[in-house]
């Protein structure tokens, strides 16, 4: 176990390194003159030179990379080249919207996909099982943006229960208003992510039904469904954990689009704005944080899976 953890940790470190190099190289080597971009069209060569000096752009690329990564390791993600604000501070502020949104979305996805996925597997071949399966397949093909628009039409435009857009200026000091603003966005991501998870749960359950220990339990006098629930579901739960890393990546991606659609002041919207404004220094910090987060979640999921799955332990 220790050995596995160390190997996995080394892989994580390597992953973070490769990710940071890829992000840096892509953003720094390829584009035109960053200094020109910041200075604007009506700038003098002296102004451009001053900016280049200030940002360290006339140093060799490796020095620039080391400078950046050194800052990141000290918790300094850099400052915006356009507004001069600190990236880390802004990320922390925007996380107050995105993190609750992500947790809500994941909770919704798991809460509806696990029971419905198991149900659709147990009712396989019957009308309701087929309907659930077709429904999941169809929902998984829906673009998140459109799912959000349809929910807005129903719950905001027709029923008027929830706000169509925006986040209260007062933030979490008015918890009910803030939560209300996040319900539709979280529901949108949760439903689309959950539809994919549901298909996965269904397959995992079908596989569990065929396992020897479930059949043995059934043979020893449990009904097929009791055997499945008592002995099969833990296995299903374990395989759900293995895809949670993917789910988190999916939710981050969903949040980028959904925050735009619902006009939420979160990390996704910040990223979109910075990419549009070509604020390279901010974008590279944000992308590193997001990719790093996905890699770290994958690492934790692997470790947890290793610890709680007895079959994995025996395998070593």
């Amino acid at each position, binding site marked *: 176990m220790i050995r596995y953890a160390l190997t996995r940790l080394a*892989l994580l470190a*390597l*992953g973070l390194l*490769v*990710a940071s190099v*890829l*992000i840096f190289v*892509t*953003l720094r080597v*390829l*584009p035109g003159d960053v200094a020109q971009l910041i200075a604007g069209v009506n700038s003098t060569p002296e102004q451009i030179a001053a900016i280049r000096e200030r940002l360290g752009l006339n140093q060799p690329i490796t020095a620039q990379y080391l400078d950046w990564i050194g800052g990141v390791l000290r918790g300094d993600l850099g400052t915006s080249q356009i507004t001069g604000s600190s990236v880390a501070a802004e990320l922390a502020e925007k996380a107050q919207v995105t993190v609750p949104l992500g947790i809500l979305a994941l909770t919704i996805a798991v809460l509806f996909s696990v029971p419905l996925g198991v149900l659709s597997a147990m009712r396989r071949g019957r009308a309701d099982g087929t309907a659930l399966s077709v429904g999941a*397949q169809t929902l*998984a*093909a*829906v*673009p*998140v*943006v*459109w799912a959000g*628009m*349809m929910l*807005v*039409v129903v719950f905001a*435009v*027709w029923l008027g229960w929830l706000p*169509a857009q925006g986040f209260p200026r007062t933030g979490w000091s008015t918890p009910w208003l803030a939560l209300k603003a996040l319900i539709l966005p979280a529901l949108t*991501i949760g439903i*689309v*992510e959950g539809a*994919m*998870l549901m*298909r*996965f749960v269904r*397959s995992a359950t*079908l*596989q569990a039904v*065929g396992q020897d220990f479930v059949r043995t339990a059934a043979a020893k006098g449990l009904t097929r469904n009791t055997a499945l629930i008592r002995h099969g579901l833990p296995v299903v739960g374990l*395989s759900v954990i293995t*895809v949670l890393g*993917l789910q988190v*990546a*999916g*939710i*981050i*991606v*969903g949040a*980028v*689009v959904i925050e*735009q*659609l619902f006009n939420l002041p979160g990390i996704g919207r910040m*990223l979109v704005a910075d*990419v*549009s404004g*070509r604020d*390279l220094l901010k974008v590279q910090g944000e*992308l590193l944080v*997001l990719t790093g987060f*996905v*890699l770290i979640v*994958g690492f934790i999921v692997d470790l947890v899976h290793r610890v709680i799955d007895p079959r994995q332990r025996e395998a070593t």
Partner: protein
Amino acid sequence: MTATPPIADVSSHRAPSRWAWLGRLWALSTGRFGIIVVLVILITAIVANFWTPFDPAQVNIPNRWAPPGWPHILGTDGSGRDILSLIMAGARTTVFVAVGAGIVATVIGITLAALGALTARWMRESVAVFVDILIAFPVLIIAMMISTVWGGSLWVVIWSVGIGFGVNVARVTRPELRRVLHSDFVLAGRASGLTAAQNLVRHLLPNVAPVFIVQLSWAMAVAVLAEAGLSYLGFGAPVTEPSWGLLLAQLQQYISVYPLSVLWPGLAITITVLGLNLLGDGLREATDPTLTRSTPRMPHVPEVVA
């Protein structure tokens, strides 16, 4: 598929037809639905090149927000453009992006898989680790990197999905390649003097093709979703280009007044993605002899791509 050696199997004297899988695909409800959807979208895209009911770019202010009916079957948008014509023209963009992303994913996937399966040991292992790392990069993050550098365009979608899914293709194809590499016919090919490259093209690739085509079908589904999402965010199709994602973004501004107009482009995207997903599922079932109905396999769990 290769011809069955006569001694090993006496029950079938003829080699199985090269196209037998198509029949099996059509026999599956998923496969049939997929084939029909893909054909309809392809034909729509081709027809839209020559003819649409109205000119999709034609602004007609007095006729704005016409409800669905005749002659505007799906109604008109806020500047009087015919929504059906816009959707037909948008199919061209969708097909372009899906095919482009498919080609990029193929080239990247096959290259990485071949490097990871057929080269020296240290190279194989490093490619495998590299692929494992790249897989954690969501397509949208790749798209963001590309559009920060070059600005938004349909090529952003093609490259980001192509790279993101090419890595996936490599991860699935690599073990297949390793497996086939040790089979007798590949050894026989090598013994009869084929070079590594000839062996790859003649024996290895045809045998991993089924696994690979399934992945490709899913990659195209992701490309369609990504086009919609990225165009919505403003990093995809330029405003002058007809695109389903762009149409969604434009119609969204009036969603509280004309909610139903948003329905059509969304339906077009959903049906196309569903068709490609089911085509992939069907292809997997039709081409994989080890997969029977009693042994379900895990479905692919792609990330949400907008």
